[in-house]
């Protein structure tokens, strides 16, 4: 028994020795890089090289997008262009006829369902009137309110949860972007009156805070990539106007940044968005 134990102990000792000293391993193996070239051992690395740690330049801390969840207004799938169209139609713009917004379609189908339930139960059911952004804007424009007052009225209604707004109007700090709302009314009114659609503005990083342009030489072609870091108060609609002149191309921006934005209203300060070039 003892002999067996001693034999095993010796065997273990020998194996350990072999592992540690590796007498049969080629010494030069350790000094070769994976491609087989012999590493010239003339560079001596000592701790002295990095002694002066303070002198090292520290990289600037990368600012991560703020993850703070702001309270956002309720949104729905009504398109801003449909809503604007109906505002213009209601205000009597020539050549503009109202369209059925998603909200109205939903109201209609709900009304059909209620009629079905009513027929079955004999109980009268009510489809409550809800305030809509469309109605608020029409009333404010009719009353000749200033842009500032419209901003206050719309944001109060959104904060109180009484209206839902199109997603592209939601700003990075959880407000409703009435600049985009009003700008789009003007743009669509101009187009309805036979005017031209706004052109794509020439923008440069000097004028737009948060914009970056990276130029990459690919073969003979120079490829320009544009980026934009979301600022406080930006909405996707506003970014679209900034780079493309109107809200028409918000989808292009949204599609290019789907990995970052789960929906057009989930825009956050500090997010770095790709601004694609429009296909000409």
């Amino acid at each position: 028994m003892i002999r067996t134990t001693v034999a095993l102990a010796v065997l273990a000792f020998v194996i350990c020795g072999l592992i540690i000293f590796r007498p049969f391993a080629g010494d030069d193996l350790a000094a070769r890089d994976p491609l087989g070239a012999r590493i010239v051992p003339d560079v001596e690395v000592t701790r002295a090289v990095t002694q002066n740690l303070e002198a090292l330049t520290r990289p600037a801390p990368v600012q991560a997008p703020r993850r703070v969840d702001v309270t956002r207004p309720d949104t729905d799938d009504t398109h801003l262009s449909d809503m604007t169209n109906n505002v213009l139609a209601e205000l009597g713009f020539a050549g503009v006829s109202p369209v059925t917004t998603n909200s109205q379609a939903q109201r209609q189908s709900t009304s059909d369902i209620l009629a079905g339930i009513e027929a079955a139960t004999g109980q009268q059911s009510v489809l409550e009137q809800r305030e809509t952004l469309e109605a608020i804007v029409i009333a404010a424009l009719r009353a000749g309110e200033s842009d500032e007052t419209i901003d206050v009225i719309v944001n109060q209604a959104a904060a109180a949860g009484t209206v839902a707004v199109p997603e592209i109007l939601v700003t990075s700090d959880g407000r409703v972007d009435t600049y985009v709302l009003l700008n789009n009314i003007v743009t669509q009114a101009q187009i309805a009156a036979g005017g031209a659609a706004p052109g794509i503005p020439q923008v440069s990083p000097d004028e737009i805070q948060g914009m970056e342009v990276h130029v990459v030489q690919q073969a003979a072609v120079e490829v320009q990539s544009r980026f934009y870091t979301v600022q406080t108060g930006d909405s996707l609609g506003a970014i679209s106007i900034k780079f493309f002149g109107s809200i028409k191309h918000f989808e292009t921006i949204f599609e290019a940044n789907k990995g970052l934005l789960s929906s057009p209203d989930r825009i956050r300060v500090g997010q770095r968005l790709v601004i694609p070039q429009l296909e000409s």
Partner: protein
Amino acid sequence: MRHIVFLTVFSSLMAGTGATAQEVRITTFKSDATFTLNGQTFTITRNQDTGATMQGEFARTSRACPPDCLQPMHAADGVVTAGELEVLAFLEQDVTDRRGLLLDTRAPEAFARGSIPGAVNVPFVTLGPENRFRDDILRALGATTAPNGTLDFTNAMSLTLFSGGAWSSDAPDAIEHLITAGYPAEKIYYYRGGIQAWIGVGLSVQFHQTPG
């Protein structure tokens, strides 16, 4: 406003059975189920043609999955799964007593092509959170608005939900939406077999058509 035309076709295929007693009964001691819905009386029987087979849309066995994937027996915790006899009992008791409602959760077009007599069409999407008018539907089903603004389901009706068949997620989705909205699970029943199983055993079907 939707005008519903009832074209009940049950017992139209009783050819050949003559004046003899019914050959195809619901159970040994039950030949039909009769219930009233808002003053209207419905009678459900089975097709008396013993040679009848499934035809058309619901004879199909292999709908693509996804989206039409087989559903589990239990739709949600607390929701009881029903078969045809339970659905008939629900119509005869709960629906007749105005305590319950049978909901067809398919799209309006599918509902118009034929549904269980007495069923009311509430497409599952309209019960989803995206429908800003959902609370109006829930109130029509008996929920009331509590003083603090939330919905109170104490007097809400018991519901039996169904859709196309065991391969349809419409009814389970509708059940999920209802429970998320606060509807008590113990007031909800799930008829998993749906319209396909219903037609498959020759039970009466009601057609709803919108003129124009």
